């Protein structure tokens, strides 16, 4: 073995050890734990418990995250589209500066803000009541699955927008100008010329957001602890209150499958991107 080869192995060794010790080993451990009982014997009982006890949450989690992703896509296209095609210089500049702010706010802070904003006597309802739009008796709290969706969209839309707007900015402007010259409206130009060209970037942004949202505990814990809520909350409860790591890991394994599925789409998209180059 040549000295430079040895050196390169030595250089990657720390990273490899960290990866194995802190990621691969715990991952394998939790998968094994999901399929064993307290005495260590193989069993599917944990999955039975997970599916019977948390059936509604297992359905709601991908539904909540999926709906959030959809809304994020719409917002990202709208904001990115206006930044690219907007004609009011000042509005474009202000929007461009403002839309990134939520990126710098941690999930738990966002959740806390939403609690004071969306509660029954929160800022939103109070403002609507002050405007006379809402009757106080009909005011309702949004601190349930709707609150989770609102927080996720608010927090993750800027991230996807950042990627999408970047891709839109680097497009060949001549395609946009050609469409506009031929009389296409701005909306039509956005949907038929711009979006198809940034579609892969949009997908990648959404997939990364999906995986991040799947793993957030603070938002469901603070906004909607009761059912329907997200799998992460159920896992935390299982461990904190019942000391039951096996069912928690079974729930975790189901989350892996969900994120694994979208990760597969991500890999396919990046492969296609590379092949296209």
């Amino acid at each position: 073995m040549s000295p430079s080869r040895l050196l390169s192995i030595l250089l990657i060794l720390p990273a490899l050890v960290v990866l194995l010790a802190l990621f691969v080993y715990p991952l394998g451990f939790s998968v094994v734990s999901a399929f064993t009982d307290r005495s260590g014997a193989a069993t599917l009982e944990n999955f039975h418990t997970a599916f019977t006890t948390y059936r509604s949450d297992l359905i709601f989690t991908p539904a909540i995250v999926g709906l959030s992703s959809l809304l994020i896509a719409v917002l990202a296209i709208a904001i990115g589209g206006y930044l690219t095609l907007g004609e009011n210089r000042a509005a474009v500049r202000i929007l461009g500066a403002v839309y990134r702010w939520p990126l710098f706010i941690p999930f738990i802070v966002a959740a806390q803000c939403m609690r004071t904003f969306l509660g029954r006597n929160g800022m939103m309802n109070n403002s609507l009541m002050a405007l006379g739009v809402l009757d106080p008796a009909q005011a309702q709290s949004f601190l349930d699955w709707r609150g989770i969706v609102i927080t996720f969209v608010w927090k993750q839309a800027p991230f996807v927008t950042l990627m999408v707007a970047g891709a839109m900015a680097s497009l060949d402007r001549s395609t946009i100008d050609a469409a506009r010259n031929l009389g296409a409206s701005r909306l039509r130009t956005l949907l038929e010329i711009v979006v198809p060209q940034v579609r892969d970037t949009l997908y990648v942004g959404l997939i990364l957001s999906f995986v991040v949202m799947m793993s957030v505990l603070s938002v469901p814990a603070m906004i909607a602890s009761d059912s329907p809520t997200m799998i992460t909350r159920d896992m935390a409860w299982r461990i904190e209150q019942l000391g039951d790591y096996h069912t928690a890991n079974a729930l975790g394994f189901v989350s892996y499958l969900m994120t694994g599925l979208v990760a597969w789409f991500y890999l396919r998209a990046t492969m296609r991107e590379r092949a296209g180059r």
Partner: protein
Amino acid sequence: MKRREFLMSTAAAGATLATAGTARAQQRRTITVMTAGDQNMVDYITDYLGPLFERQNPGVSVRAVGTGPGDAGSQRIWERLEAQRRANAQTVDVDVAVIHQRMAGTMVQQNMLARYRPEVQTSNLVTNEVARNSLGVNVDGFVMPMFMSQIAMAYNPQTVPNPPRTMDELVTWAAAHPRRFGHNGIRGGMSGVGFVFAWMYAYAPNPQQLINGPYDANVIASWGPALQRFKEFNRNVTITPGNAGTLDALNRGEIDMGPVWMDMFYTWVAEGRLPPTMRLSMIQTGLPGQPMYYVIPERAANAELARKFIELATSPQVQAVGIVQRFNWLPGIDAQHVQSHLDRAVWERLFRDVPPDQLASMGRPMPQADFFQAIQQAYERNVMN
């Protein structure tokens, strides 16, 4: 030369001081009180009980360590003692521990606690069942209750002139006033969990077995109708985000009634966070309460001082001033021993809505430890799902 002499004399003086310091440290003894529970438990030891004990016992200092709220806090104390036991330590570094009921049973079964109660002079001031039975485990002699906390129904008398006295009346009331009753379910703190237990005491086929055991997994199947009814009941109620959330919703007028911890209720009223017009009531089939226990670990390094500490902590004077007056808890020893040490006003504030006879007849223990978990899991499976 002078400078050198000066340096040497300083060094000598320093050495003398250091020796004197060590001697003093040897005279001074420290007992460690490790407590589970919220921050107010640590405050109680550091601000009130610790200084009092130090004044009465010169040369002793009290070190309070909090391990966090809920059963998880008691679990940490167990982990510490278990680690020292596995290491075959001659003495353990926890002298007094304050733990929840479930862990008290476990620790007694695992021979981790000293049978100290007969040696404490205040032992005969407690006749309550909880001093002997902790969630179905016989803990007689191993524990002294620090205080009792009790769940009661808080309500707004302006909107609820006649509060429901039975669970049936509550169900009818909630149906007539949708979303005006609030509880925090099983994920947001013990006042909600306790309400779920109260529901089972009212509607499960054999409530006595849930409290006294023996545990029998076959009983779980018989809970179906009770839980189904709960699910329908929950359609008419507001689920609040926690113990504090229920009180908060009551204060904001979002709900008119809900289960709360009595001590939290009184503290909130005293702090002006809840209008003094709010009242408490009980449910005839019973609402649960729980003590926290003083225990002394087996092989505690300062067992004798620990017994002295607990003796002080369970004396009528301290129970009156510290537990009742300052922290709004119900006394751990029998109430009649405490009464003479309290102002009439304080006594009446504590028992105005729920007098001692109601507490005795409608206060229930939490369920037996295995049923405790089984009910929570059945609620998740059948009511939340």
